[in-house]
């Protein structure tokens, strides 16, 4: 590797990392929090078979899963202003990422809810608990444990997905790499560098996931 390229990479590293920590990470966390909220609500509506809302949820999941994330992003940021809805780039990205991943996560959460035996719900009724109490203390904790690996996957894929926000002017880590590249023309080096930083972030998340899974591990071991 020549000295010029090495110098560029060393210079750009703190800048990229800085955007990663200040923009990419918060964008991921906010989007994921929104996605988690949406997914739990949507899953609960389906689990409890709430009449009309259930149809609304199916429709939402159908639309989101059937259209590309990039198109959704452009539709909201470039399309909606023409009907008077202007959303800043960052919040637009959070909204789209949240609603997008939320649809996939809703399916994971719903599956996890269904995997908790309905008999526990009935047992709860018989000892005088309300639907809410049973969900909160019995069903949701078990479902969360079951859904945890899938939700972790969603978080990791979302972190990488935030790079798409660069296409709607959000100055996050990947866009910063393109900006630097515009001055120095070192595509291979710079994009490899930014890829490695994403890889490091994801490795960290994978590691956290393992710890989380151990913490949640089994109410007294797998057997049941």
């Amino acid at each position: 590797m020549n000295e010029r390229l090495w110098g560029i990479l060393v210079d750009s590293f703190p800048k990229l990392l800085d955007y990663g920590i200040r923009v990419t990470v918060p964008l991921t966390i906010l989007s994921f929090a929104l996605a988690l909220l949406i997914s739990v609500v949507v899953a609960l509506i389906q689990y409890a078979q709430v009449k009309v809302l259930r149809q609304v949820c199916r429709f939402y999941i159908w639309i989101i899963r059937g259209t590309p994330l990039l198109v959704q992003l452009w539709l909201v940021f470039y399309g909606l202003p023409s009907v008077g809805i202007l959303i800043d780039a960052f919040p637009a990205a959070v909204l789209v990422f949240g609603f997008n991943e939320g649809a996939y996560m809703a399916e994971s959460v719903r599956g996890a809810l269904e995997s908790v035996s309905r008999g526990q719900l009935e047992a709860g009724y018989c000892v005088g608990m309300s639907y809410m109490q049973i969900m909160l203390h019995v069903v949701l904790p078990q479902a969360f444990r079951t859904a945890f690996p899938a939700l972790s996957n969603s978080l990791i894929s979302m972190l990488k997905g935030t790079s798409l926000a660069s296409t709607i002017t959000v100055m996050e880590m990947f866009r910063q790499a393109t900006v630097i590249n515009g001055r120095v023309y070192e595509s291979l080096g710079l994009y490899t560098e930014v890829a490695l930083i994403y890889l490091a972030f994801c490795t960290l998340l994978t590691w956290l996931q393992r710890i989380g899974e151990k913490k949640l591990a089994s109410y007294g071991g797998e057997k049941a």
Partner: protein
Amino acid sequence: MMLEAKNVRKSFDGREVLRGIDLQVEKGDVIAILGPSGSGKTTFLRCLNFLERADAGELVFDGERFDLHAASRADIARLRKKTAFVFQNYNLFLNKTVLQNVTLGLTLGARMKKDAAREIAVKALEQVGMADRLDAYPSQLSGGQQQRVAIARALASSPEIIYFDEPTSALDPELIGEVLSVMRQLAEAGMTMLVVTHEMDFARNVSSKVLFMEGGSVIESGPSRRFFEQPKEERSQAFIRSIIEARK
């Protein structure tokens, strides 16, 4: 009369599963509900506790009337306070310890203080011989132990009657005895019990009355001894014969 069910009817998808069941229970009765599988025993028990909505029927409990088809939420909650249910496959809360399984209904359902609930739970668990496993999770217990915890959970709410739906049917043969002996103790202590079972020794020796069902109707009911020694109906006779055959 503590409990009287009248004309309980239920259909699933247009197929009549309960064709007007009547039942009378006195305080302290232990009634075995017998009958071939598919005859509607489980459904009947579930209707009595509103786990299933009957199409028609009435329940009189301690002099209070409940419409088994149209009772309100508040009515159901009030009725369930006086009853408890033990399921075939235990239905313990899998994310809770043995102790929590018993206290949860007390603290959340009956809004009892933690300490008071714990005290009651420990007593109930002592009664079923599970007080030494307070911190175990259901997955660490044998089926017989899980069912005993489920019985403790039922006892903790001081019900006036406990419904049992085939409490030993999911158990390995060597674990059936421990559950039956707990149930026998309860019966001897005067607990009112309604027990769907295939355990003929229990029906014969522990229960005071028998309700024999087939095809969604009561074929014969009466004192256990009479049912086993001089069954009146031909169907009952055939049923008892088939049980004796199966044993050989």
